[in-house]
């Protein structure tokens, strides 16, 4: 049973809300009235209560926005009991009530942005969307505006393993308060580095922020193993081969091409298209691998005996990508 401010808001706009439901129902027959009613009662009701406790005047616009967005997301099986993305449910049930202040600011923008962020994080293998929500919850109180919160979300997404967002997230760091950047990247409070200093230092993809300013002995090591056979939820139909073009690492399985993105926070494959990029090279680059499986780079050497059987390997200025003949995985080696 829906009670309190949500019930009042729904009652006030009963005709309008019913028409919207009927419209979405006409567009999508899978929109189950029971699922929608359950969602309103169990999920939206507490969020609207939280909004009411901060600003009673915001109940109506927030209700309208959440009602419409719920219809949209439930129709696409992204929210509600039948959702294919449980993390989006977690966001609405567990975190949105606590972030009510941002909902009041711009309910549609905020709820849609947060839902989309969780959805996008869910789609990436190896990225922990729950960690993103927790990190955001940790910093929510320190965000003075919705835009600041959303900027923080971008940095947190990179921190949670979205390595392909690295460059643009570093740019966002420069415009975000120092304390927020430090907290998002896991630096302790004693660390007095400014956001710009942190961004400059982290241009080195393999520098762990906790080692900033410390003398840390780098070693060549396997930093990530990504990819896999398509039959086991991986991307490749056959063992891939690696290439490099303009400092970007690529993998190709004779069917599709992926770009490889990796740093200290995670490694990720992004589908590039059917064709290989221009200016492609199979030159090994600054990392060298000898016939004994010894990798050398910038004065560092490390032996990985099985690598003497490598099928292909390339590198850019930071990372080496290597494939083996009988596996669909890609091994990344870097000075970390």
């Amino acid at each position, binding site marked *: 049973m829906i009670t309190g401010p949500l019930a009042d808001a729904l009652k006030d706009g009963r005709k309008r809300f019913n028409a919207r439901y009927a419209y979405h129902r006409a567009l*999508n027959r899978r929109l189950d009235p029971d699922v929608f009613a359950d969602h309103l009662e169990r999920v939206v009701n507490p969020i609207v209560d939280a909004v009411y406790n901060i600003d009673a005047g915001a109940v109506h616009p927030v209700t309208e926005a959440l009602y419409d967005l719920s219809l949209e*997301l439930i129709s696409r099986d992204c929210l509600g009991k039948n959702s294919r993305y449980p993390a989006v449910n977690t966001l609405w049930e567990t975190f949105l009530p606590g972030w009510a202040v941002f909902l009041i600011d*711009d309910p549609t923008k905020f*709820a849609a*942005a947060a*839902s*989309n962020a969780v959805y996008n994080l869910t789609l990436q293998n190896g990225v922990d969307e729950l960690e993103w929500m927790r990190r955001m919850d940790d910093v929510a109180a320190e965000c003075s505006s919705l835009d600041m919160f959303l900027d923080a979300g971008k940095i947190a997404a990179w921190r949670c393993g979205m390595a392909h*967002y690295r460059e*643009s997230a570093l740019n966002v760091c420069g415009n975000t308060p120092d304390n927020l950047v430090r907290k998002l990247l896991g630096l302790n409070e004693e660390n007095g580095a400014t956001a710009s200093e942190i961004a400059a230092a982290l241009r080195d993809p393999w520098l762990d922020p906790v080692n900033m300013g410390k003398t840390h002995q780098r070693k060549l090591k396997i930093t990530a193993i990504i990819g896999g056979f398509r039959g086991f939820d991986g991307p490749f139909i056959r063992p891939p081969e690696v290439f490099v073009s303009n400092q970007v690492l690529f993998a190709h399985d004779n069917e599709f091409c992926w770009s490889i993105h990796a740093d200290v926070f995670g490694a990720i494959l*992004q589908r590039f298209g059917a064709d290989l990029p221009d200016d492609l090279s199979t030159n090994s680059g600054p990392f060298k691998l000898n016939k004994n499986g010894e990798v050398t780079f910038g004065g560092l050497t490390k032996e990985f005996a099985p690598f003497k059987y490598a099928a292909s390997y390339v590198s850019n200025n930071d990372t080496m990508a290597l494939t083996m003949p009988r596996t669909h995985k890609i091994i990344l080696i870097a000075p970390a």
Partner: protein
Amino acid sequence: MSTLERLQQVSEAPTKPGLVEKKKTFDVADLYQGPATGVDDAAAPDPRLDEKLRQAYFWVINHAIISPYYDIEYNEKPPQQYTFGDQKVKVNLPTDQSYSSYVLLPLLNLAVRRRCLLVGGPGRGKTAIAILMGVVSGYSLRDVKRAIQHGQPQMTIADLLGNPLPSTMVSAESMEDIKIAWRKWLEMRVKIIDEYNRIPTRTQSALLTVMADNYAEMYDQIYECPQAAWYLTANDDMGGGTYQVIEALRDRIDVMVKALHFNTRFLGELLLRVEEDIRPEEIVPRQVIFKPDELDRMEKDILRVHLSVELRRRLAFFAGHFEFFEPAARQLEYMTKDTAKLAGVEFNHLFAQETGKDRLADLGGQTVNGLSVRAFMTALTFVKAMAYFRGAREVSYEDIRQIIPFVLHDKLVQNSDSPFFEQKDAAALRTDHISWIRNLYDESCREYERLNLDREDPVAELEQEFEKGLEGVSDKEIRRRMTNIERLLSGWSKSRKLYGHMFDDILKLKYLHQRYTNYLKWLEWRN
């Protein structure tokens, strides 16, 4: 997927494969883009507006307006062709993305914000497409419907423009003191005039001021309207409405689109819509709705589309056929159809006097008028819009060939008594003006190629020479150029026949000669 779900589907980009560059960089702002709509678009990657325009086209054509016609045909390789009937009508199976004029032209009109006339019998969706254009340009359906001006015989200027406020009428001591409650539609960026040929003549004149000069005037008060895309509808294009449409108003219409018949093979689709009570204008997807600044940007982008010199010359050659009318005057400058028209002389009476010229080959004989500057400007804008819509940054030959008939439909008035239409296959061109104008353009291009003007255009060479400027050019060089002009004119004068395309060339040569003469006189005076 149900029919109703299909209705909100927007074609996935790229709608014209091969136009989009591969994405090589990633923007963390993409994090907030996904299944939930409503995130500030500023955070979204800037979409290509031509792609959005194509998505809007495909949404309208696939889900809103049942117009399964591809009368704007593009081919990247020769199409399969079949002939049918006594007239041996050719049906092509286009090999490149082709379009329905009924949806495409209103969209292009929205993009370049001109004036589009939708013509067709009742119930063919003329008002529906106009309303869709209003919604696509960002207005709510309610606002669009309220702003439609429905032409009717009792429509007054006050109905159209607004009313003076009674309180100010009483207290006003001068006209300036009278306040006008302007009608809301005047501020819209999409203006819809339904059945414009049912508006009384006097009110049409008030409408003309708004359409032509973008302002409304009442009691010495002026209301400046924003730049807008206009959609006018009429059941009959030949002036068969309640009132004759004033010529100036007709002339302001930039492009004419004909609503084609309903293809009965699509009755099933129609039935589903009736049963599901779906009105497409109510479910326009957010992705295909343009913001005002996007429309501004799109228009600027369209005007930046390049038109090559080679195509511009073809277009000029084509347009050159129509104004020239030898029997109208004794002096070359006045040998125009306009001279005959202003004199009030029966055109065919004069046309019959012409002798010796091949009246079938003379394209100018097929029209009773020439092209105005406004018609040229509209043609140039719409061909650019067509190229832009196809994702090109340069106008192609086919863009001109496909668009010209719709732009010139009301601009070129057919001389249906021309012997050309007496030919066996040409009779249908008397009524099918789109095919007639396209045929004119094709014939003109054939003549252009026969004369080898792409390679040998002496006037263009002289033009280029002149455009370099006269500063520092010696009198000797000027005389050489003048001799070239005289020699060219002398050569042409030996041919007995004078055709339209030569008319402008001769006048241009006379112009160049005069400029050189003046410059030479100045040089002589200085020395």
